[in-house]
Protein backbone atom coordinates (compact mmCIF):
# COMPACT_ATOMS: atom_id res chain seq x y z
CA UNK A 1 0.00 0.00 0.00
CA UNK A 2 2.83 2.39 0.79
CA UNK A 3 4.28 1.78 -2.64
CA UNK A 4 0.96 2.44 -4.27
CA UNK A 5 0.46 5.70 -2.44
CA UNK A 6 3.83 6.83 -3.69
CA UNK A 7 2.96 5.77 -7.22
CA UNK A 8 -0.27 7.69 -7.37
CA UNK A 9 1.44 10.72 -6.01
CA UNK A 10 4.16 10.53 -8.61
CA UNK A 11 1.88 9.81 -11.54
CA UNK A 12 -0.53 12.60 -10.77
CA UNK A 13 1.94 15.36 -10.23
CA UNK A 14 3.15 17.33 -13.19
CA UNK A 15 6.69 18.59 -12.69
CA UNK A 16 6.69 22.34 -12.32
CA UNK A 17 7.80 24.27 -15.38
CA UNK A 18 11.20 25.80 -14.77
CA UNK A 19 12.18 22.97 -12.51
CA UNK A 20 13.11 20.99 -15.59
CA UNK A 21 15.03 22.73 -18.30
CA UNK A 22 13.08 25.92 -17.79
CA UNK A 23 14.89 28.86 -16.30
CA UNK A 24 18.55 29.64 -15.83
CA UNK A 25 21.17 26.94 -15.68
CA UNK A 26 20.82 23.23 -16.11
CA UNK A 27 19.16 21.73 -13.03
CA UNK A 28 20.97 19.00 -11.17
CA UNK A 29 18.19 17.68 -9.01
CA UNK A 30 19.65 14.21 -8.60
CA UNK A 31 23.00 15.43 -7.34
CA UNK A 32 22.06 15.27 -3.68
CA UNK A 33 20.37 11.90 -3.97
CA UNK A 34 22.46 8.83 -3.13
CA UNK A 35 23.53 6.93 -6.26
CA UNK A 36 21.60 3.81 -5.24
CA UNK A 37 18.28 5.65 -5.04
CA UNK A 38 18.51 7.29 -8.42
CA UNK A 39 16.36 5.84 -11.15
CA UNK A 40 18.13 4.72 -14.32
CA UNK A 41 18.00 6.92 -17.43
CA UNK A 42 14.44 6.95 -18.81
CA UNK A 43 15.39 5.09 -21.99
CA UNK A 44 16.86 2.25 -19.90
CA UNK A 45 13.63 2.12 -17.88
CA UNK A 46 11.62 2.00 -21.13
CA UNK A 47 13.81 -0.76 -22.58
CA UNK A 48 13.65 -2.84 -19.39
CA UNK A 49 9.86 -2.65 -19.04
CA UNK A 50 8.45 -2.28 -22.54
CA UNK A 51 7.81 -5.97 -23.16
CA UNK A 52 6.02 -6.69 -19.87
CA UNK A 53 3.85 -3.59 -20.23
CA UNK A 54 3.01 -4.37 -23.84
CA UNK A 55 2.26 -8.01 -23.06
CA UNK A 56 -0.15 -6.89 -20.35
CA UNK A 57 -1.77 -4.36 -22.70
CA UNK A 58 -2.26 -6.83 -25.55
CA UNK A 59 -4.47 -8.90 -23.25
CA UNK A 60 -6.15 -6.04 -21.40
CA UNK A 61 -6.52 -3.32 -24.06
CA UNK A 62 -6.48 -5.46 -27.22
CA UNK A 63 -6.68 -3.23 -30.32
CA UNK A 64 -5.93 -0.18 -28.11
CA UNK A 65 -2.63 -1.62 -26.84
CA UNK A 66 -0.47 0.81 -28.82
CA UNK A 67 -2.39 3.87 -27.64
CA UNK A 68 -2.31 2.71 -24.03
CA UNK A 69 1.41 1.91 -24.31
CA UNK A 70 2.16 5.43 -25.48
CA UNK A 71 0.01 7.02 -22.80
CA UNK A 72 1.61 4.84 -20.14
CA UNK A 73 5.16 5.82 -20.98
CA UNK A 74 4.33 9.48 -21.56
CA UNK A 75 2.77 9.57 -18.07
CA UNK A 76 5.86 7.87 -16.69
CA UNK A 77 8.07 10.37 -18.51
CA UNK A 78 6.08 13.28 -17.12
CA UNK A 79 6.73 12.05 -13.58
CA UNK A 80 10.25 10.73 -14.13
CA UNK A 81 12.39 13.72 -13.13
CA UNK A 82 10.71 13.72 -9.70
CA UNK A 83 11.13 10.02 -9.16
CA UNK A 84 13.37 9.09 -6.25
CA UNK A 85 12.59 5.56 -5.17
CA UNK A 86 14.02 3.08 -7.63
CA UNK A 87 12.88 0.03 -5.68
CA UNK A 88 10.18 -1.22 -8.03
CA UNK A 89 9.97 0.53 -11.34
CA UNK A 90 8.28 -2.43 -13.02
CA UNK A 91 5.42 -2.32 -10.51
CA UNK A 92 5.19 1.42 -11.07
CA UNK A 93 5.02 1.02 -14.87
CA UNK A 94 2.36 -1.69 -14.56
CA UNK A 95 0.29 0.42 -12.16
CA UNK A 96 0.26 3.28 -14.68
CA UNK A 97 -0.60 0.89 -17.52
CA UNK A 98 -3.43 -0.60 -15.47
CA UNK A 99 -4.90 2.82 -14.93
CA UNK A 100 -4.66 3.60 -18.64
CA UNK A 101 -6.62 0.43 -19.41
CA UNK A 102 -9.36 1.37 -16.94
CA UNK A 103 -9.46 5.00 -18.16
CA UNK A 104 -9.48 3.97 -21.81
CA UNK A 105 -12.38 1.57 -21.21
CA UNK A 106 -14.30 4.35 -19.48
CA UNK A 107 -13.77 6.90 -22.24
CA UNK A 108 -14.54 4.28 -24.86
CA UNK A 109 -17.85 3.54 -23.14
CA UNK A 110 -18.75 7.22 -23.33
CA UNK A 111 -18.14 7.75 -27.02
CA UNK A 112 -19.78 6.32 -30.13
CA UNK A 113 -17.37 3.52 -30.91
CA UNK A 114 -18.01 2.33 -34.48
CA UNK A 115 -17.26 5.56 -36.40
CA UNK A 116 -14.06 6.29 -34.53
CA UNK A 117 -12.88 2.72 -34.91
CA UNK A 118 -13.15 2.96 -38.67
CA UNK A 119 -11.30 6.27 -38.70
CA UNK A 120 -8.45 4.98 -36.57
CA UNK A 121 -8.06 1.84 -38.59
CA UNK A 122 -8.00 3.77 -41.84
CA UNK A 123 -5.44 6.36 -40.71
CA UNK A 124 -3.04 4.02 -38.94
CA UNK A 125 -0.15 2.64 -40.95
CA UNK A 126 0.26 -0.41 -38.73
CA UNK A 127 -2.28 -3.18 -38.34
CA UNK A 128 -4.00 -3.25 -34.96
CA UNK A 129 -1.86 -5.16 -32.42
CA UNK A 130 -4.88 -7.40 -31.73
CA UNK A 131 -7.62 -7.97 -34.30
CA UNK A 132 -10.83 -6.41 -32.99
CA UNK A 133 -12.68 -9.53 -34.21
CA UNK A 134 -10.37 -12.00 -32.49
CA UNK A 135 -12.75 -14.31 -30.58
CA UNK A 136 -10.59 -14.23 -27.45
CA UNK A 137 -10.55 -10.45 -27.47
CA UNK A 138 -14.32 -10.46 -28.06
CA UNK A 139 -14.63 -12.49 -24.86
CA UNK A 140 -12.13 -10.33 -22.93
CA UNK A 141 -13.72 -7.04 -23.87
CA UNK A 142 -17.00 -7.98 -22.20
CA UNK A 143 -15.24 -8.14 -18.82
CA UNK A 144 -15.24 -5.07 -16.58
CA UNK A 145 -11.80 -3.44 -17.08
CA UNK A 146 -10.55 -4.16 -13.54
CA UNK A 147 -11.31 -7.84 -13.98
CA UNK A 148 -9.75 -7.87 -17.43
CA UNK A 149 -6.61 -6.20 -16.06
CA UNK A 150 -6.50 -8.60 -13.11
CA UNK A 151 -6.79 -11.64 -15.40
CA UNK A 152 -4.02 -10.30 -17.64
CA UNK A 153 -1.72 -9.66 -14.68
CA UNK A 154 -2.34 -13.12 -13.29
CA UNK A 155 -2.22 -15.26 -16.43
CA UNK A 156 -0.05 -13.27 -18.81
CA UNK A 157 2.54 -11.85 -16.42
CA UNK A 158 2.20 -14.42 -13.59
CA UNK A 159 2.00 -11.67 -10.98
CA UNK A 160 1.29 -12.58 -7.37
CA UNK A 161 -1.96 -11.36 -5.79
CA UNK A 162 0.04 -8.82 -3.80
CA UNK A 163 1.50 -7.47 -7.03
CA UNK A 164 -1.90 -7.40 -8.71
CA UNK A 165 -3.30 -5.52 -5.72
CA UNK A 166 -0.51 -2.95 -6.05
CA UNK A 167 -1.23 -2.52 -9.77
CA UNK A 168 -5.00 -2.25 -9.31
CA UNK A 169 -4.80 -0.11 -6.21
CA UNK A 170 -6.80 -2.19 -3.75
CA UNK A 171 -6.54 -5.03 -1.29
CA UNK A 172 -5.17 -8.48 -2.03
CA UNK A 173 -8.67 -9.89 -1.41
CA UNK A 174 -10.10 -7.55 -4.02
CA UNK A 175 -7.37 -8.61 -6.45
CA UNK A 176 -8.21 -12.27 -5.84
CA UNK A 177 -11.92 -11.58 -6.38
CA UNK A 178 -11.25 -9.69 -9.61
CA UNK A 179 -9.15 -12.54 -10.97
CA UNK A 180 -11.72 -15.13 -9.94
CA UNK A 181 -14.72 -13.26 -11.37
CA UNK A 182 -12.88 -12.41 -14.57
CA UNK A 183 -11.72 -15.96 -15.06
CA UNK A 184 -15.19 -17.32 -14.46
CA UNK A 185 -16.82 -14.99 -16.97
CA UNK A 186 -14.09 -15.58 -19.50
CA UNK A 187 -14.57 -19.35 -19.28
CA UNK A 188 -18.31 -18.98 -19.74
CA UNK A 189 -17.89 -16.81 -22.84
CA UNK A 190 -15.20 -19.07 -24.27
CA UNK A 191 -17.32 -22.12 -23.54
CA UNK A 192 -20.36 -20.63 -25.30
CA UNK A 193 -18.44 -19.57 -28.35
CA UNK A 194 -17.94 -22.00 -31.22
CA UNK A 195 -14.63 -20.36 -32.02
CA UNK A 196 -13.18 -22.04 -28.92
CA UNK A 197 -14.54 -25.50 -29.69
CA UNK A 198 -13.02 -27.96 -32.09
Amino acid sequence: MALHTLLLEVVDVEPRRGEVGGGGGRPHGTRGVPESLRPPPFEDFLEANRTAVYRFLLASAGPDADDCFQETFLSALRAYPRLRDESNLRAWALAIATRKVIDSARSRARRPVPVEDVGEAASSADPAPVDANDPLWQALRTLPPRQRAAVAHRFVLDLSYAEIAAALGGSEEAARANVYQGLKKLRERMGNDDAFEE
Partner: protein
Amino acid sequence: MPSRNSGRRAGGTAAEAVAVALRAMTSDAAAGSRRAASRIGDAADAAGLVDIAYGTVDTPIGALLVAVSRRGVTRVAFEEEIGDTVIELSDDTTMRVLRSARGTDEVRRQLEEYFGGRRHEFDVSVDWSELHGFTRKVLRETARIPFGSVLTYREVAGRAGNSRAMRAAGNALHANPVPIVVPCHRVIRTGGGLGGYGGRLDRKEALLRMEGSLL
Protein backbone atom coordinates in the same frame (compact mmCIF):
# COMPACT_ATOMS: atom_id res chain seq x y z
CA MET B 1 -5.88 -23.51 -32.70
CA PRO B 2 -4.33 -26.55 -31.02
CA SER B 3 -2.57 -24.59 -28.29
CA ARG B 4 -5.78 -23.03 -27.04
CA ASN B 5 -7.46 -26.34 -26.50
CA SER B 6 -4.59 -28.55 -25.47
CA GLY B 7 -4.71 -27.38 -21.84
CA ARG B 8 -8.33 -28.40 -21.55
CA ARG B 9 -8.03 -31.69 -23.33
CA ALA B 10 -5.10 -32.63 -21.14
CA GLY B 11 -7.46 -32.28 -18.21
CA GLY B 12 -6.17 -28.79 -17.35
CA THR B 13 -8.12 -26.44 -15.19
CA ALA B 14 -10.04 -23.44 -16.46
CA ALA B 15 -7.16 -21.26 -15.40
CA GLU B 16 -4.67 -23.23 -17.47
CA ALA B 17 -6.83 -23.03 -20.59
CA VAL B 18 -7.19 -19.28 -20.17
CA ALA B 19 -3.48 -18.88 -19.53
CA VAL B 20 -2.61 -20.85 -22.68
CA ALA B 21 -5.00 -18.81 -24.82
CA LEU B 22 -3.76 -15.50 -23.41
CA ARG B 23 -0.11 -16.46 -23.91
CA ALA B 24 -0.81 -17.26 -27.55
CA MET B 25 -2.51 -13.90 -27.94
CA THR B 26 0.44 -12.00 -26.42
CA SER B 27 3.30 -14.02 -27.86
CA ASP B 28 4.38 -11.21 -30.19
CA ALA B 29 4.94 -8.73 -27.35
CA ALA B 30 8.72 -8.38 -27.73
CA ALA B 31 8.57 -7.26 -31.36
CA GLY B 32 5.40 -5.21 -30.89
CA SER B 33 6.81 -3.40 -27.89
CA ARG B 34 10.02 -2.59 -29.75
CA ARG B 35 7.95 -0.93 -32.46
CA ALA B 36 5.79 0.92 -29.93
CA ALA B 37 8.83 1.98 -27.85
CA SER B 38 10.59 3.41 -30.91
CA ARG B 39 7.75 5.92 -31.26
CA ILE B 40 7.93 7.21 -27.68
CA GLY B 41 10.69 9.76 -28.35
CA ASP B 42 8.80 11.59 -31.08
CA ALA B 43 5.50 11.43 -29.19
CA ALA B 44 7.22 12.79 -26.07
CA ASP B 45 8.84 15.55 -28.11
CA ALA B 46 5.47 16.52 -29.59
CA ALA B 47 4.07 16.66 -26.05
CA GLY B 48 6.91 18.92 -24.88
CA LEU B 49 8.25 16.27 -22.51
CA VAL B 50 11.80 16.01 -23.85
CA ASP B 51 14.58 18.07 -22.28
CA ILE B 52 17.31 16.78 -24.58
CA ALA B 53 16.48 15.13 -27.90
CA TYR B 54 19.24 13.27 -29.70
CA GLY B 55 19.66 11.67 -33.07
CA THR B 56 22.31 10.74 -35.59
CA VAL B 57 23.17 11.88 -39.08
CA ASP B 58 25.44 10.16 -41.60
CA THR B 59 28.16 12.33 -43.09
CA PRO B 60 31.33 11.83 -45.17
CA ILE B 61 33.37 12.06 -41.93
CA GLY B 62 31.28 9.37 -40.22
CA ALA B 63 28.08 9.30 -38.22
CA LEU B 64 27.49 12.32 -36.00
CA LEU B 65 25.39 12.47 -32.87
CA VAL B 66 23.44 15.67 -32.37
CA ALA B 67 21.75 16.58 -29.11
CA VAL B 68 19.32 19.47 -28.77
CA SER B 69 18.22 20.92 -25.42
CA ARG B 70 15.34 23.34 -24.91
CA ARG B 71 17.84 26.15 -25.54
CA GLY B 72 19.50 24.82 -28.66
CA VAL B 73 22.20 22.46 -29.91
CA THR B 74 24.04 21.22 -26.86
CA ARG B 75 26.27 18.50 -28.27
CA VAL B 76 27.72 17.26 -31.53
CA ALA B 77 29.78 14.08 -31.17
CA PHE B 78 31.82 12.06 -33.62
CA GLU B 79 31.08 8.45 -34.36
CA GLU B 80 33.38 6.85 -31.78
CA GLU B 81 32.08 9.16 -29.02
CA ILE B 82 28.36 8.52 -29.57
CA GLY B 83 27.81 5.79 -26.96
CA ASP B 84 29.67 7.61 -24.18
CA THR B 85 27.99 10.89 -25.03
CA VAL B 86 24.48 9.42 -24.73
CA ILE B 87 25.41 7.88 -21.36
CA GLU B 88 26.87 11.15 -20.18
CA LEU B 89 23.79 13.14 -21.27
CA SER B 90 21.42 10.60 -19.67
CA ASP B 91 23.27 10.55 -16.37
CA ASP B 92 21.26 13.36 -14.83
CA THR B 93 17.83 11.73 -14.64
CA THR B 94 16.10 15.01 -13.85
CA MET B 95 16.73 15.66 -17.55
CA ARG B 96 14.53 13.70 -19.93
CA VAL B 97 16.90 12.54 -22.65
CA LEU B 98 15.30 10.69 -25.55
CA ARG B 99 16.15 9.71 -29.07
CA SER B 100 13.82 11.71 -31.29
CA ALA B 101 13.93 12.30 -35.04
CA ARG B 102 11.38 15.07 -34.56
CA GLY B 103 13.39 16.94 -31.93
CA THR B 104 16.62 16.87 -33.94
CA ASP B 105 15.10 17.34 -37.38
CA GLU B 106 16.28 20.89 -38.07
CA VAL B 107 19.93 20.50 -37.09
CA ARG B 108 20.23 17.13 -38.85
CA ARG B 109 18.82 18.67 -42.03
CA GLN B 110 21.25 21.59 -41.85
CA LEU B 111 24.22 19.29 -41.30
CA GLU B 112 23.19 17.25 -44.35
CA GLU B 113 22.99 20.43 -46.39
CA TYR B 114 26.41 21.55 -45.11
CA PHE B 115 28.06 18.26 -46.03
CA GLY B 116 26.21 18.29 -49.37
CA GLY B 117 27.77 21.68 -50.16
CA ARG B 118 24.43 23.47 -50.05
CA ARG B 119 24.89 25.38 -46.80
CA HIS B 120 27.72 27.60 -45.53
CA GLU B 121 26.18 28.86 -42.30
CA PHE B 122 24.20 27.15 -39.57
CA ASP B 123 20.94 28.79 -38.65
CA VAL B 124 20.30 27.04 -35.34
CA SER B 125 20.57 28.27 -31.76
CA VAL B 126 23.39 26.88 -29.67
CA ASP B 127 22.92 26.10 -25.99
CA TRP B 128 25.63 28.22 -24.40
CA SER B 129 24.37 27.72 -20.85
CA GLU B 130 27.11 25.34 -19.76
CA LEU B 131 29.94 27.34 -21.27
CA HIS B 132 31.52 30.00 -19.14
CA GLY B 133 34.29 32.58 -18.97
CA PHE B 134 37.12 32.56 -21.47
CA THR B 135 35.96 29.27 -23.02
CA ARG B 136 32.62 30.80 -23.86
CA LYS B 137 34.25 33.91 -25.32
CA VAL B 138 36.61 31.84 -27.48
CA LEU B 139 33.79 29.67 -28.81
CA ARG B 140 31.56 32.69 -29.41
CA GLU B 141 34.32 34.26 -31.52
CA THR B 142 34.92 30.97 -33.31
CA ALA B 143 31.25 30.79 -34.22
CA ARG B 144 31.73 34.02 -36.20
CA ILE B 145 34.48 32.70 -38.48
CA PRO B 146 32.85 32.38 -41.90
CA PHE B 147 32.91 29.34 -44.17
CA GLY B 148 36.06 29.27 -46.27
CA SER B 149 38.26 31.31 -43.94
CA VAL B 150 40.50 30.47 -41.00
CA LEU B 151 41.96 32.23 -37.97
CA THR B 152 45.05 31.40 -35.91
CA TYR B 153 44.90 30.42 -32.26
CA ARG B 154 46.50 33.78 -31.43
CA GLU B 155 43.88 35.70 -33.40
CA VAL B 156 40.97 33.90 -31.73
CA ALA B 157 42.55 34.40 -28.30
CA GLY B 158 42.91 38.10 -29.15
CA ARG B 159 39.31 38.46 -30.22
CA ALA B 160 38.28 36.76 -27.01
CA GLY B 161 40.21 39.42 -25.10
CA ASN B 162 43.70 38.04 -24.49
CA SER B 163 45.99 37.36 -27.45
CA ARG B 164 48.63 35.79 -25.16
CA ALA B 165 46.22 33.12 -23.93
CA MET B 166 46.82 30.92 -26.96
CA ARG B 167 47.06 27.73 -24.93
CA ALA B 168 43.83 28.49 -23.07
CA ALA B 169 42.18 29.19 -26.41
CA GLY B 170 43.44 25.86 -27.72
CA ASN B 171 42.00 24.08 -24.67
CA ALA B 172 38.65 25.81 -25.12
CA LEU B 173 38.51 24.77 -28.76
CA HIS B 174 39.54 21.22 -27.92
CA ALA B 175 36.63 21.02 -25.44
CA ASN B 176 34.10 22.48 -27.92
CA PRO B 177 30.87 20.55 -27.21
CA VAL B 178 29.37 21.48 -30.58
CA PRO B 179 32.04 20.98 -33.27
CA ILE B 180 31.15 21.77 -36.88
CA VAL B 181 28.18 23.92 -35.76
CA VAL B 182 30.73 26.06 -33.89
CA PRO B 183 33.52 25.61 -36.45
CA CYS B 184 36.58 25.08 -34.27
CA HIS B 185 38.20 23.37 -37.27
CA ARG B 186 38.66 26.88 -38.74
CA VAL B 187 41.33 27.71 -36.16
CA ILE B 188 44.88 26.75 -37.13
CA ARG B 189 48.50 27.43 -36.21
CA THR B 190 50.22 30.70 -37.03
CA GLY B 191 52.67 29.05 -39.41
CA GLY B 192 49.85 27.36 -41.34
CA GLY B 193 50.04 24.06 -39.43
CA LEU B 194 46.69 22.48 -38.68
CA GLY B 195 47.14 22.34 -34.93
CA GLY B 196 44.95 19.89 -33.04
CA TYR B 197 41.37 18.70 -33.24
CA GLY B 198 39.24 16.96 -30.68
CA GLY B 199 37.60 14.82 -33.33
CA ARG B 200 40.81 13.48 -34.99
CA LEU B 201 43.05 15.55 -37.20
CA ASP B 202 42.05 13.86 -40.49
CA ARG B 203 38.53 15.15 -39.92
CA LYS B 204 39.79 18.72 -39.46
CA GLU B 205 41.71 18.32 -42.69
CA ALA B 206 38.67 16.94 -44.53
CA LEU B 207 36.45 19.78 -43.30
CA LEU B 208 38.95 22.48 -44.30
CA ARG B 209 39.43 20.83 -47.70
CA MET B 210 35.66 20.72 -48.19
CA GLU B 211 35.47 24.44 -47.41
CA GLY B 212 38.27 25.23 -49.82
CA SER B 213 40.60 26.47 -47.09
CA LEU B 214 43.10 23.71 -47.77
CA LEU B 215 44.25 22.56 -51.17
